[in-house]
């Protein structure tokens, strides 16, 4: 099953990994994307995430479909992304994938994060301490 969500609430790693857990699964792989507190010497005071929600949820679903075709042994997939203000150190993204054995869960998690960064219409703006103007970031290709 796919659990896909954009939310303004704090993400619970425990709750999201439990969503994909199943008594048939021996492995859950989780990725937590958090916000660093500095960029090129500037202190980041907060992050702001904006999403094109309908399209982002479609992109998440497309990623799930691709994962399930590449790794049929994958059982559950959860993709939770924060929107709105996110404090430094808080999770902006949690991805969790379960499978009977560890290989598919681990590989699918890495693939999911790569695909999400490349294809999901979500944007991050960093706000800095001092006089520096906030900056919309750009993921590397």
């Amino acid at each position, binding site marked *: 099953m796919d659990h896909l969500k954009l939310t303004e609430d704090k993400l619970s790693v425990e709750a999201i990994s439990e969503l994909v857990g199943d008594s048939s699964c021996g492995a859950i792989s989780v990725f937590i*994307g958090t916000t660093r507190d500095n960029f090129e010497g500037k202190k980041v005071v907060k992050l702001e*995430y*904006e*999403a*094109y929600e*309908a*399209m*982002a949820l*479609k992109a998440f679903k497309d990623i799930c479909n691709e994962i399930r075709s590449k790794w049929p042994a994958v059982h559950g997939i959860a993709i939770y*992304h924060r929107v709105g203000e996110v404090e430094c150190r808080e999770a*902006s*993204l949690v991805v969790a994938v379960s499978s009977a054995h560890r290989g598919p869960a681990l590989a699918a998690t890495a693939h999911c*994060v790569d695909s*999400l*960064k*490349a*294809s*999901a*219409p*979500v*944007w*991050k*703006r960093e706000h800095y301490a001092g006089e520096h103007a906030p900056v*919309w*970031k*750009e*993921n590397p290709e």
Partner: protein
Amino acid sequence: MESEHAVTVKVLFFAQSKELAGTREATIQVPTRISYKELLNIITETYNLQPLRNNILLAKNEEVCEQSVELEIKQEDRIAVIPPLSGG
């Protein structure tokens, strides 16, 4: 453009494009058949997006538009301006 060949669509802006356009959403009349490049020109000129022109993608109804084929636009389609992604 003649009205029988034009439709009204919603245009959605995000991130930098929202700041340049000064709005999150607008409506615009466009021809029912139009190349990707023509649509991109109309939108960047109408909404002050020239600085981003080479860095944005257009999506129609939540799907990124193919750039090589002529687009068919229908009344109430949602055209979105997609600046460089930074999710994750």
